[in-house]
């Protein structure tokens, strides 16, 4: 029984984490139209920084090297991870968002992601290179002293709370005048600029907030698996987040949730139970990617807006004041009715 609960809680944790990733990408791409092709880099930055903030100083002789090692409590580590991801998002935004063209942006984000990957992988002094960080302490595990399955349930509750806060704030942003301006920029950047919108600044806000979201997801990831190495955040993972958002429906956070469930949870788990063939160890991950790719293509073909389409903004009804100006309206309706 405990095993089943632990398994379901594990799925729940991944569901929450992917939701947060998808919210972050949704703020960047779904709201603002920023083609961020290196989502997963922010997850890594958040995870690593939270990891080295929480780990103790590196021990000589263990052959594991990393910077900082501050032994900080987990809430502080969370803040550090989120802030670091936001800072890297800002730096990439400085280069990528200067130009208006979106293809330029896509290429810059891809390149920046490769650079971060190369540096983290090859410079063993930062986060132990391709070996990665291990043994990152889990929040509250020392205090609670639970068996792994029960701990997973507690951790799920933590993830669910953080995810709910992220969802709430993302929706609030969407409905605000700032969110509306972001969507106007998504629709036509030049026009928004011609209407006095500081498009660079607004896009930078979206870039940084999205990066912080993904960074928070990264912190939860490293806490849950207690380790993080470059193999865990290749370009393929960025693709999974994109697939979740496209399939679920970009521009709305419910779509991001549905997409995370379909792509990151359902497909990941369904393929996990396929019989492994020992001579082809890469077969299952490849099948997984083929399935997700197929799902994206089918979505774009049959329902390009995604499973849950972006909804129209609703305003409270304002009565018309029929005065002198509005008097002409009745005559005009006939012409505009075509």
């Amino acid at each position, binding site marked *: 029984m405990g095993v089943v609960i632990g398994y379901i809680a594990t799925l729940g944790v991944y569901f929450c984490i992917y939701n947060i990733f998808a919210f972050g990408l949704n703020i960047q791409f779904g709201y603002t139209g920023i083609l961020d092709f290196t989502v997963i880099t922010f997850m890594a930055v958040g995870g690593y920084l939270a990891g080295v903030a929480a780990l103790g100083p590196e021990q000589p002789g263990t052959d594991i090297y990393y910077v900082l090692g501050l032994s900080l409590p987990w809430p502080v580590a969370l803040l550090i991870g989120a802030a670091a991801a936001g800072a890297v998002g800002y730096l990439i935004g400085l280069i990528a968002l200067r130009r208006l063209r979106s293809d330029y942006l896509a290429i810059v984000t891809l390149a920046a992601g490769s650079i971060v990957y190369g540096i983290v992988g090859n410079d063993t002094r930062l986060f132990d290179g391709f070996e990665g960080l291990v043994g990152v302490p889990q929040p509250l595990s020392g205090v609670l002293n639970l068996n792994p399955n029960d701990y997973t349930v507690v951790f799920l509750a933590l993830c669910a709370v953080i995810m709910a806060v992220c969802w709430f704030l993302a929706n609030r942003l969407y409905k*605000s*005048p700032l*969110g509306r301006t972001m969507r106007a920029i998504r629709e036509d950047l030049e*026009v928004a600029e*011609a209407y006095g919108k500081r498009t660079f600044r607004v896009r930078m806000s979206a870039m940084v907030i999205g990066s912080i979201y993904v960074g928070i997801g990264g912190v939860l990831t490293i806490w849950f698996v207690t380790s993080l190495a470059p193999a865990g955040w290749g370009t393929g993972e960025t693709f999974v987040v994109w697939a979740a958002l496209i399939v679920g429906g970009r521009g709305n956070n419910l779509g991001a949730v549905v997409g995370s469930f379909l792509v990151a949870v359902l497909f990941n788990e369904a393929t996990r139970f396929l019989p492994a063939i020992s001579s082809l160890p890469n077969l299952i991950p490849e099948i997984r990617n083929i399935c997700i790719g197929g799902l994206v293509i089918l979505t774009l073909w049959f329902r390009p807006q995604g499973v849950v389409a972006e909804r129209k903004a609703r305003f409270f009804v304002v009565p018309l004041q029929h005065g002198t100006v509005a008097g002409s309206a009745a005559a005009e309706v006939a012409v505009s009715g075509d």
Partner: protein
Amino acid sequence: MATETDDFAPATAVTPTDGLLVVAGLARRFGGVQALDGCSFAVEEGTITALIGPNGAGKTTLVNVVAGAIRPDSGRVYFAGQDITARPSHQIALRGLIRTFQLSREYPQLTVLENLMVSPQRQVGERLSVALLRPGRYRAQERAYLERAVQILDDFGLYGQRDEYAKNLSGGQKRLLELARAVMAGPRLLILDEPMAGINPALVDRLSAHMLRLRAEMSITFLMVEHNLDVVERLCDHVVVMAVGRTLATGTMAELRQNASVVTAYLTGGVADVRAES
């Protein structure tokens, strides 16, 4: 009085305070094309000024330079007496100079009402901290904007379409939306790039009526690129004629009809004739 520039040297006669908008000796080259070549004129406050000229005369380029969308190679732009040359578009817009585009460019995936709600500048709810943490602080302003937007939509006969995606409007409705959205920004000067192009005569009359009304009610000054000379004659106080990137003449429509070089430039396409004369 029609002033005719016989030698096409950049006119230096304008000074920054000649009007609400003053354009002085603007030049801009695209590869081998000299799109603007020392264009100068002034738009007086409270007028509806027309900018006419053959295709390729540089009218849209001029609008783009004035609005800060592209940089001039030389020359100056003054708005309300201040030098705004090559300022970023959003800064120029914040000073009250709003332009529309030659092809309708609504925000397609926003509703008609939202298209208007984006326009007001420096909204309280556009600040990140307010948007995320204190949404109560923008409610009152949002409601005021909403009331104004609904009123403007009603004035433009788009009230029934307010919750429709802008991309689903007809061509003529999109032109109306373009103007309604610009009005919502509360501009001092509105530059319209061929607002009447491709719309039926009844709608032309309605748009003209709207412009006259806006000038009277909101004291908006207009600069309008337009090919339809009947509309120009009826609507505009003042006309600027451009050809090959220069100001060919300015004056009222009646004055310009007497002007031989304007007639040739306009009726024959201009470019060859103007070059031959100079």
